[in-house]
């Protein structure tokens, strides 16, 4: 009787000790796994956000061994992005630097000597004008400036928001001839031959800068980095575990309970750029007018809520997302079919989504 009580009590105690040992072993096991992971170069994910480049929100995601390593890489990326931001700025002057604003200020006055990165950007803008039959025009500053003023005023004074007169826009559109942008590569100068014209590189500059910075990072030996500059996303390498970066395209319908319209898996060097009417816009009499102005109508394009481009060059993706936003679906589909390695997704205001032939190959799930 007594013995059996003692025996069973000892058995219970032994069981508890066994559980404790197993549990503490489990703890050790976790600890061992962590150290094994760091030994086998398992990389940690870090992110940082900047608000001071390209008038938008920039997120850098990197997979590195340490926070310090990531901070160093992010600092280099930010420095590079800031450089391009200043060069391509049309609103601000910077000490000791001729930028796009300097070129605009000297329209009809004199050629301006500029950094080769400006020459390259403008040449790229001219190429995109030719490629898209003028649907992307960096010489449309005179028209975009009017819309910019009305939009800024309308955002800050919603009850007084109004639309510019068509006559005013048409008068400005007389000064948007891209052939009047004179680039002299030898002298490294740019001259606007029409004193009333101006450059606005908003449709290509972010994408172009992201592509340049990405290539710079690659040359520096960096890897496993994802850039997100406003709507422009580009990946260098893969995630830390070697799998593709997974990115999400925001649902243009901000009221929707589904925050993402699509999730994509992007391979090394692939880029996604979205253009839409849901971030920069203002309202007049309850109607939304976005920041993307169709060169043909001189009014904001209204066909789509958003267009996304998937390709291997961020600059091209940026330009083409604007171009497709300004085309009909049929025009856009014909255009995409004529391009190698470029895929697109169109989103209508009612949520209807149309894909180009191979876009869905990159969709997750």
């Amino acid at each position, binding site marked *: 009787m007594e013995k059996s009580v003692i025996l069973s009590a*000892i058995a219970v105690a032994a069981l508890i000790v066994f559980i*404790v040992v197993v549990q503490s072993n489990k703890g050790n096991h976790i600890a061992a796994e962590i150290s094994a992971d760091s030994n086998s170069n398992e990389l940690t994910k870090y992110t940082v*956000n900047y608000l001071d480049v390209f008038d938008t*929100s920039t997120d850098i995601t990197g997979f590195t061994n340490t926070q310090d390593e990531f901070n160093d890489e992010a600092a280099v990326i930010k420095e590079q992005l800031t450089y391009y931001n200043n060069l391509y700025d049309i609103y601000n002057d910077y000490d000791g630097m001729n930028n796009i604003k300097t070129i605009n200020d000297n329209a009809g006055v004199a050629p301006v000597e500029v950094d080769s990165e400006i020459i390259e950007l403008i040449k790229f803008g001219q190429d995109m004008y030719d490629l898209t039959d003028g649907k992307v025009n960096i010489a449309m500053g005179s028209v975009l400036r009017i819309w910019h003023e009305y939009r800024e005023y309308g955002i800050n004074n919603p009850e007084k928001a109004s639309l510019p007169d068509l006559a005013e826009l048409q008068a400005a559109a007389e000064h948007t001839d891209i052939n009047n942008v004179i680039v002299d590569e030898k002298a490294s100068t740019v001259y606007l031959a029409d004193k009333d014209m101006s450059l606005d590189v908003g449709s290509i500059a972010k994408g172009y800068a992201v592509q340049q910075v990405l290539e710079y990072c690659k040359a520096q030996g960096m890897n496993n980095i994802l850039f997100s500059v406003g709507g422009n*996303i580009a*990946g260098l390498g893969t995630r830390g575990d070697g799998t593709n970066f997974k990115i999400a395209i925001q649902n243009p319908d901000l009221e929707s309970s589904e925050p993402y319209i699509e999730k994509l898996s992007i391979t090394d060097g692939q880029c996604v750029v979205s253009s839409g009417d849901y971030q920069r816009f203002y309202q007049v009499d309850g109607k939304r007018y976005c920041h993307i102005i169709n060169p043909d109508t001189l009014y904001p394009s209204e066909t789509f809520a958003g267009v996304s481009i998937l390709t291997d060059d961020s600059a091209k993706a940026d330009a083409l997302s604007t171009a497709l936003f300004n085309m009909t679906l049929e025009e856009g589909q014909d255009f995409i079919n004529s391009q190698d390695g470029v895929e697109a997704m169109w989103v209508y205001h009612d949520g209807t989504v149309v894909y180009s032939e191979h876009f869905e190959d990159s969709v997750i799930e």
Partner: protein
Amino acid sequence: MKKNDVYLIICILVVCGGIALITNLVTRAKTTDAAVAVVTIDGSEYGRFPLDVDTEETIRFEDGSYNTLTIHDGICDISEASCPDQICVNHMPIQYNGQNIVCLPNKLVVTIENGEEDDIDGMTH
């Protein structure tokens, strides 16, 4: 003797139980470092708000503008703001590590730290 045996057994049981409880608590504390929403204004930290505490905090600026941060059921959102574009208010609620909500006009950023990992590395804005 008999009584002492019983005491001994009880002691062993209590000690074992205690050890089991402590190791349990320690491992639990290690694995669940609470997720927080970190608010920064123009790059400098304004405050940290744990996601496991329901809160509503209105951040006011000198010029009268404001953003209202709401944490409910472990999810963080900007429920109201004075900014003209309302992009931060329309932004989806966040809960995963590294996700953020940005209010450009007020230079305010809310970022999740120590949260669970999302399956997404980045999103278009």
